[in-house]
């Protein structure tokens, strides 16, 4: 791990932190529950670590841990995205008309 890479990780972290703040603070309260589910699903990105552990065959011990990790991370990812989709679909179903009328209200 070179110092160069560490510094460039620092840049990525700093930028991601700003961006995270900006993006998340713009999510309306209406969508806070889907937000929780969605970030949980995205946090399943640690799945990538478990994939390598499960496939690398370092030792039986680590393979077993890896497979359990793959299962739980996949539950998290698949379940998370699906339930978010279920929720958002409910919000979107009643979108077209209602939203227009609200915008109209604002303009008039």
């Amino acid at each position: 791990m070179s110092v160069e890479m560490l510094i460039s990780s620092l840049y990525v972290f700093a930028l991601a932190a700003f961006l995270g703040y900006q993006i998340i603070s713009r999510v309306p309260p209406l969508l806070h529950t889907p937000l929780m589910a969605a970030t949980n699903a995205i946090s399943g990105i640690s799945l990538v670590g478990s994939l390598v552990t499960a496939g690398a065959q370092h030792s039986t011990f680590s393979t077993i841990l890896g497979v359990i990790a793959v299962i739980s991370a996949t539950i998290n990812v698949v379940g998370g995205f699906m339930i978010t989709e279920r929720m958002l679909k409910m919000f979107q179903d009643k979108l077209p008309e209602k939203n227009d009328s609200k915008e109209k209200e604002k303009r008039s």
Partner: protein
Amino acid sequence: MESKYLIEIAYVIASILFIFGLKGLSHPKSARNGMNLAAMGMLVAVVGTLLHHEIVSYTWIIVGLLVGSLIGSVMALKVSMNSLPQRQALSLAFGALAATLVGIAEYSRGDQLGAFKMTALGFEVLFGSLTIAGSVIAYAKLQELLRGTPITFKGQNIFNIALFAVTIGIFIYLIFAPENTILFYVMVGLAFLFGLLMVLPIGAADMPVVMSLMNSYAGLASAATGFALNNNVLIIAGTLDGFSGFILSILMCKAMNRSMTNVLFGAFGGASEEQQAIEGVQREVGVEDVAVQLAYARQVVIVPGYGLATAQAQHTVRELAEALEHRGVIVKYAIHPVAGRMPGHMNVLLAEANVPYSSLYELEQINSEMAATDVSVVIGANDVVNPDARDNPKSPIAGMPIIEVDKSKQVIVLKRGKGKGFSGIENPLFFKPNTGMLYGDAKASLAKLVQAVQQA
């Protein structure tokens, strides 16, 4: 070498898609598309990872992916919207389990663990194991497998602090002597214990705050792993996650006017003994009277709370609103930011019941309309409409912004009996002369009301 760059590029794409995905959540219109992008990002990341040169066998990976997808999708399709908080707790537990196991496996390989990598790894398993324990307790409390009120014992806080100090001490020692395997597992165990003991004394309704915090730490831990492995997608996803949890927990604390310390260590909810009873009586009203009041009102504001979720009454409440609207009554929903057991919980429930979100109003919007409201209908909400929060500076919930139903001309409260809200305190609203109590399960009462309104 080639495959390495492909993986890197897959991760760049995944990061960008995650960001687009969360950006989509700034509006219900763009949210679904956004989430599709994020899911695609995850797919790209997974497919990219499969090219990793260390992977020699795909059998177990495929088994794991299939089993996980199966369980995950069944859970996602079966879970009722009313038990979303529980699901969230479980999902947090699964995520933490995965992170902890990978951390342990990584540690058990044992090759050249530098101080830096050991630090990141340590964070990962510490937070991971703490979070597993914490979120299982959270699940149990929300699902009412455990008592929802704080579970405390004497000297708890001091014991917890000591436990915490010991765990951290071991962690610091391990950074310099990573080869001490036994201590490593002791640390994992202590962190687990700490997770249990930390969450037990917290009340059920405060679980979302705890869960958000744990989520946020989990995100930061995975960012730390990203630093150690030089994996930028981990840094980005972890940081986004960390901020999301952090911001949500802050928002919840603000919406309750309580400090984070009070939430985590205050053993809040249900335990205040030295409370004076309120003098006066609760005026009980009948379904017919309420139906007539509602049917001839100009504007009705509906205030849903935790009781709506437990009674699964969201569909019935929409029917009532439709029956009223059919008669020309203006119906608005007032959503308190911490009504229910999860931020945004009420919004999802009402969306499920096909309530258009343009009729959902936030706290400030609706409070300015309260004086012009003929009837407020409080359905299974309690603390979020407790006027003591505004009027009585000594109340445990003093300063929490409330929906000021007491300013509307008439208030109807639907609840099962004389139960208290999460905070465990009396609600003077129920004793006001213009408040009528309609006892019974929210769903049953609402169904009766719908019939009565249709006949009025």
